[in-house]
């Protein structure tokens, strides 16, 4: 089985081979694909942990300004794809990840953020023994303008830089309505607020691509609703491209432009939320196939 290509007619990533023969892909429906400009392109990425092929030859393109969602049952490899893009893992040979013309695989993990990719984590990785404000200021790290000696002496330049960073952080605090929690330690915050703080920290980085790993997990209905508004606003007002992993299909349908469904490390469907939800293989991945009833049979 050949994994479906997400965007065959888009120009191949710079500095690499063309993305294979142009087989017609029945799942690809978007007519605007030729003109849309690609921000992030993953090509044939695979990663193996011991005997488990966690991600198997996955390819997809994220277009500038869209919300692109990865869905799939647990263990499908969605978070692994995120970690590959963040350079926490390195894909096997042949894989390529290109972000806006830069080969991400040539970068160290900290270099990814410097290119303008910010992410959140499934299980919240905030700096617990720091305040919300300090967490957000750490998000500004890639924009630092002062060196070690300037920091040590806290020169006027360092003071100006600190205030400039603070102004940017305050914009994010306003946007996500975090003013009430500004000086609270993370360890004292409820889960829902932590989730928002993590989003805020990623936004403070002023990213071009925002990667959200299950933004609604652990949130109640109202908080999920807020999250949906925010994701929509982030894309619309700030023009930030969003790549997310999400399980809540109502949130996915509400905010996503395109959805990529994965199962057991492989791509099984790509298209609009409606198309993917209707796809037979996606239904099979979540609910099991109608032919195979052995799992339902009562064991003797």
């Amino acid at each position, binding site marked *: 089985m050949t994994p479906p290509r997400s965007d065959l007619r888009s120009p191949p990533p710079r500095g690499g081979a063309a993305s294979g023969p142009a087989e017609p892909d029945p799942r690809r429906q978007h007519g605007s694909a030729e003109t849309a400009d690609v921000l992030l392109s993953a090509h044939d990425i695979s990663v193996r942990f011991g005997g488990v092929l966690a991600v198997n030859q996955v390819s997809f393109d994220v277009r500038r300004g869209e919300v692109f969602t990865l869905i799939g049952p647990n263990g499908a490899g969605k978070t692994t794809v995120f970690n590959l893009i963040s350079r926490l893992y390195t894909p096997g040979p042949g894989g390529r990840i290109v972000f806006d013309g830069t080969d991400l695989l040539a970068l160290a*993990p*900290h270099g990814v*953020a410097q290119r303008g990719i910010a992410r959140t984590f499934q299980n*919240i990785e905030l700096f617990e023994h720091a305040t919300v404000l300090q967490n957000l200021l750490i998000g500004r790290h890639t924009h630092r303008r002062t060196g070690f000696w300037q920091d*040590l002496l*806290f020169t006027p330049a*360092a003071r100006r830089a600190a205030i400039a960073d603070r102004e940017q952080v305050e914009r994010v605090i306003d946007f996500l309505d975090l003013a009430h929690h500004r000086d609270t330690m993370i360890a004292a915050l409820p889960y829902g607020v932590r989730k928002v703080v993590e989003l805020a*920290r990623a936004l403070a980085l002023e990213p071009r691509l925002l990667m959200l790993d299950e933004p609604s997990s652990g949130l109640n209905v109202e908080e999920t609703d807020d999250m949906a508004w925010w994701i929509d606003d982030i894309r619309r007002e700030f023009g930030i491209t969003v790549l997310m992993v999400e399980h809540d299909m109502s949130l996915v349908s509400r905010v996503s432009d395109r959805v990529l469904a994965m199962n057991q490390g492989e791509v099984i469907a790509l298209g609009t939320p409606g198309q993917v939800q209707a796809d037979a293989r996606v239904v099979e991945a979540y609910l099991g196939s109608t032919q195979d009833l052995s799992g339902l049979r009562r064991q003797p």
Partner: protein
Amino acid sequence: MRFLFKTDYDQDLRLVKHGGHVFWYGLLMLLLVASPWLLPEYWLTQLTFVLIYGVVGLGLMLLAGFTGLFSIGHAAFLGVGAYTQAVLVNAGLPFPLALAAAALLSAAVGVVVGLPALRVKGIYLGIATLAFGFIVEEVFARWDRVTGGNAGVHVKAPALGGWKLDSSAEFYFLCLVVAVLATLAIVNLLRSPTGRAFVAIRDSEVSAQSMGIHLARYKTLSFAISAALAGVGGALYAHMIKFLSPDQFNIIQSIDLLLMVVIGGLGSVHGAFLGAIFLITMPELIGIAKGVLPDVIGQAPGLKGAVYGLVLIGFVLFEPLGLYGRWLKLRTYLQVFPLYRRGMFKRQKSFQKSDRLK
């Protein structure tokens, strides 16, 4: 109770945030400056030791308390600084130059020791630094052409041109200036991106990396600054003790230093000095107790070690935030009196972090 009405971002950057700070820190500085005239000679010496250990403590606090890297071999950096100072001052170099050289050499050694810190974490880093401490102690003992070996080496009084700092009051002021400058440097770092990067590494390496923080660079930097401060402290220590031998920089010294920052309160600048006060006054208190206690306990060997151990266990169990944490609670109690609640400083258990990436 004080409410701060903030109208300017600069208010959050200022070191003295309100009138209370101005008054209390001003009073503290006044007392410190006046102490040569207020305190008897013996207590001035003890205060000088507090300042010296405070400088070393600041360095270790930055490493252990703010970057989350533990060093059980910090006496080695102290020793490198002390011996550098001894050798250079004895060779006739003015002491500011020798002090700078001691700081630089210690920092360089710190960078070398920091390299394994990029690969090993937690207890393994502890073991690596412990081994390093033993190696350096051995070098001090064996390299007798420079260090005088086990016979030790005498250190001349600090001199600059024709001016000699040989009275204890003059030397006290030198230590006071160094301690104040070191504190300012650390506080400045902590309110700027560099310090925040350290804190980020302490709390979540994965996340720090994803925020664009170069782990290797900042961990090495933290080791270098920490070692430099230990080196400066060591240089002052050399002048204070006036005689150096390798056994002053053994494992016990390293553990004392670690004890100092843990009891002072990991993750607080105040903690470094509170810990130093603890470390210096404890032997005094034990000395007093020896006279009162029955001989079976009072004259027992290893009393000091046992007391230190018990105090450490007590702090870890009942006050993990150390002396500074205790002080914060006391201050809050007084500020909000009578509304203090027992649970005010309780934190809820942290949520499970993803261990997938560790």
